[in-house]
Every structure is written in C-alpha cells, then in structure tokens.
C-alpha cells in the first residue's frame, strides 16, 4: 500500500539556551489518501512540532519525510513554499485571515502564489466559498463575519488549491460549541468527498470525529487507534 505521507524516524531538536530539547524523537507515521486523522497530545508532547513538520513549515533534524514521492527533508525554503502551496490546505485556530481583505480576496491568496490568472482565480475562489456556504458573504471583510463564518472562509481558502491534505490546527478552539459543530460537519463532508484530513486537537470530543486517532507523547507516537 502506498502512502501520501511517510515520516520515518523523524527527529527534531531545538537548542533552547544551550539545552537540547527533543521535540520529536524518532517518530514514524504513515498517512494514506482519504484518511481522517486526529493528532492529540498534551502540551510539550511535540504535537505542534509534528503539525509544523507535516505542514512543511519545518524540516526534520534527522529522518526522512516523503510527501507523494517528494523528499521534503531535502527541500529549501522556496521548494517548501511550493509544496505548501500545491499540496497543503491550512486551517488555523485563529483563522489567520488577512484582516483588510474581503473573504474573496483571502481565498484568492494561494492561487496568486500558484500563478493562476485573475479570471480563473476569482472563479475558483467563488466556487470554494460556495462549497462552504458563504455565497452571500464573499465581499465581507473578516471583522464583518462571525467566528464560524471566518473559519469557513479559512476552509474555503484551504480547499481552493485542491490540496492533497487539509491540515487543521485546533479549528474549533476559538469557536462556540454550535459553530464548532458546524465546522466539524464540514470536515466530515469533505472527508466523504474524498479529502484527506489531519486534525490537531487536544479535545477528545473533537478528536473522536476522526476515523484514526493518534496520540503523541515525548516526541513519539504513543498510540494509533482506528475507530
């Protein structure tokens, strides 16, 4: 069986004031297409580092990271930017929308860096916003939208480049429970449509949505349960 993502013996060390912190310490993880995974772990477990690693925002100190036949651990800044642009859709806890730009402009951003023409950009951004049910909020700025709506804009933005994985970091952390449920429903639908989703969270309720639950402890995979 072939994997989209294959992490082998990943180590990531930080030097904090002369002391080496082993954030990831020999971690192995394989992810196949159309999986719905949750990654859990207490703070300091290496969960965030793992998320940054999968998201190609960070590279390992040692070990190999293969993403659809590309060797991420060998990449430079420019190549990492390119793989993030083409293959990863980010959804953040704090939404991370550009505050002065409309929802449509926000969703367009990844397409700008993919060098897609203006017309196609707008068409695809609109399509993506319609998919998350925001067809009547396209020209609103983030501060004119509710938290749930903002997160839906972020999801639209994550989907617009048709990425191989959607990487969500505490996507419900800043939302009330009703909006949180809405967002999780969107993730379920996306998974049903064939998307691969990786959900990083510390809430068990949220994690239970996923089909596979991974627990990280001391920079290693502690448990890997399919439900």
């Amino acid at each position, binding site marked *: 069986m072939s994997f989209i993502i294959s992490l082998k013996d990943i180590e990531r060390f930080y030097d904090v004031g002369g002391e080496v912190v082993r954030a990831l310490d020999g971690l192995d993880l394989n992810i196949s297409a159309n999986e719905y995974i949750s990654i859990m772990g207490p703070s300091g477990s290496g969960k965030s580092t793992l998320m940054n690693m999968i998201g190609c925002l960070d590279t390992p100190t040692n070990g190999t990271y293969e993403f659809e036949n590309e060797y991420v651990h060998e990449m430079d800044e*420019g190549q990492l930017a390119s793989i993030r642009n083409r293959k990863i859709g*980010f959804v953040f806890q704090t939404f*991370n929308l*550009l505050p002065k730009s409309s929802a449509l402009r926000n969703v367009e951003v990844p397409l700008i*860096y993919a060098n897609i023409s203006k017309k196609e950009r707008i068409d695809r951004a609109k399509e993506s916003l319609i998919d998350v049910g925001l067809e009547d909020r396209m020209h609103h700025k983030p501060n004119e939208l509710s938290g749930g709506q903002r997160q839906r804009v972020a999801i639209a933005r994550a989907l617009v*480049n048709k990425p191989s994985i959607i990487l969500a970091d505490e996507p419900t952390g800043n939302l009330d429970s009703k909006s949180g449920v809405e967002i999780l429903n969107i993730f379920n639908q996306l998974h049903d449509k064939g998307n691969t989703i990786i959900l990083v969270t510390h809430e068990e309720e949220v994690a239970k949505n996923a089909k596979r639950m991974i627990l990280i402890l001391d920079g290693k995979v502690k448990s890997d349960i399919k439900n």
Partner: protein
Amino acid sequence: MIMSSIWQNILISLTSISNNKFRAFLSVLGIVIGVLSVTLMGTMISGLDQTFEKSMSSFRSDVLMISRFQWFDGDKEWWQMRNRPRMKPEYVDNLRNRSTMIDAIAPVMERSGEISRNNVETYARFFGTTPEYLKTNEEQKIESGRFFSNIENENGARVVVIGNGIATGLFENENPVNKYVKIGRNKYLVIGVIEKQGSFMGMWSLDNQAIIPFGTYQRNFAKRGWMNLRVKTNSEDINLAKEEITAQMRIIRKLKPLEENNFGINHSSGFEAQYNAIKFTIAGVGFFITALSLIVGGIGIMNIMFVSVKERTREIGIRKALGATPFNIMVQFLTESIIICLMGGVLAISISFIISDIINDFFPSTMPIKLALFSILISVLIGVISGFIPSSRASKLDPIEALRYE
C-alpha cells in the same frame, strides 16, 4: 503571468500605503526634499548653461581678442600687465599683411558715457571701431538701417549705430534711423540699430552699446586709450591661429627670443574654463547637499519599511504558509518601498516644475525632461536601496514564528 504578479504586488502595496496615509506622507517628505534638490539643482545648472551660451554668442570660438592683458592668467597679476605697451591702430594693417590666418580684424576702443536726445539721457557703452568689426562679430546683426562705411570711418563722420536698449530708451516707438542723438557736445546721426542681445550672464546688458567710427572716436574721445584688436581667423585650429598671431605680434613688438610676450591673445575658452570652474563648484556643493538629503530621505523610508515589516509579521507568516516564497515576500515589500519613493519623486518633480516656472521670471530656468526622468530613476533607486534590508529581513522570517506573532 509576471505582469499579473507585479500588478498584484502593486495592489498590495497601495492598500498597505493607503491604510497608513499620514505615515506614508511623512516618510515621503524626506524623498520629496531630496528629489527636489536634485531637480532644482539640475534646473539651475541647465539655466546657467543656457545663459552662458547665449552670453558667449558674441564671442565665438573663431574669434581672438588681442590686448594688453591676458585673461584668466594664473601666473600673472593684473598689475604686472598694466604697464605693458598699448595696442596701436597700425597693428591692424600690419597684422593683416603678415598673417595668413586672419579673416577679419578690427580695432576696438571702448569707454562709457551718456547719450541723450531731447534732454532724455541714458547710459551707454561707446565703441570705436572699423566697418570690419561686423565681420568679427557675426552674432550682432543690424535690425534696421546700416553699419557705417569706410569713407565715414576715415572722415570721422558723426554717425552712430545704437543698441536695442538705447533705441527703446530714447525713441520709444519711433524709428531711430536718420534721427539725431547727442553724445558729449556733438550731434550724431543714428544710421542703424542692432538686434536685441540680452545681457551677459544676467549681469550687464549688451543692448546699451553705441558704435561709432574709429576715426570719429579718436577725434572726439581720445586718440590713445584702452584698445584691443578683434580678430576672426580662417583657421580650423584656433590654437594654431593663436600661435601664428603671437609670432607676428612678437615681430611687430620687436621682442627678443628670451623676452616674454607683452601682450595677450584671448579666446572664449578662457571664459569657458572660468565658467566651468564656477559651475563645477555649484554642482559640487549641490551634489553634496542633494546626496545628503537623499540619504536622509532613504533612511526615513528604510525606517518606515522596518515598521511595516514588523507590523505585518503575521501577514507574512500567513502568506508564507499559503505558499509565498521568500522571493515573493521580498518583491512585495520592495514594491511597497519603491512605490512610496516614486510618489515622493513625482510630487517633488511637480513642485520643482512650479518653482522653476516662478524662478524663470527672474533667471532663465526650465526643467529639462531628461532631468525629470533622471529624478524618477533616482526615486526608484532609493526605493530599492532603502527597501532592500527590510524586505530581505521580511523574506527570511520563519513562518512558524511569524504565525505566532501577536
């Protein structure tokens, strides 16, 4: 595709600038002052050039002036030349016969005085010369009437050719030709008027001249006095002509081989050298001030770009996460700094255009189009230089750190 991404960057920059209009305006001021001093300095120098060229038109490059003094001679003080022998009218024919390089030669005596008509008096510069003078000064053209003839010259006829300034001063709307004016105690018939000449370097007017025949001048003013010889050469090589005439003058003056020249042969290049020295001093000082103000302006822009990068750290993180390469980020901030500088440049050019238009009323000054383009180029350059460090810092930000930045 490249055009569209440039356009994207311009849009992002304009948005960011318009979000902080007042701040952008303040930081632009430095550039405005810098570019303003570039354009004004350039305009001034080009005005000076124009004036100089116009002023020198009566002293063309094929004209030599022989006199007691050598102008702009660094080795000799004027008092060392003061006691040299005078030029003599006889030299004119003598030189003409000896030299093969003389096309025309005229003695010129000169003094100042009053010229009047019907009790209206005006200042004039009197020249006593021969009809050949006109050939040695081709820029001076007779506007109406004529120049005097050889016969009038030899007879010492009381005729005068007046400059445009005297004509308007004494005759207003009348035609002066064939009317009388009074010089000293004598009446002179005006036979011609010279075209308007303007002023020399904006300092003294060339239009208050009154030219009378050489014989008349000697009879009515002075037989001997300040005189120089004006020579138009037929030689392509002015230095050759200068050498040849020097040699002939030495023979005329009967100088022994080891004796120094006791005369001077002057050429417009002496003026030019003098003028260039002045011009380079002005340009040098101007360049210093300009460079200084541009540096200060550039530092202002750099400062504001650092602030802009700092403020937008999170935005940089977001853009990087979504696929912006370090190069993309670099170009984005460079574009912003170039646009700010360009705005300053355009503003400065508009202001200096207005200022040079106002100055033009007193002193010739027009802004050359090349200078405007050059200033635009300078603005872009300042934008690149002062934006470089902040943008490269922005491009190197770690996306993880940047996303965490509050």
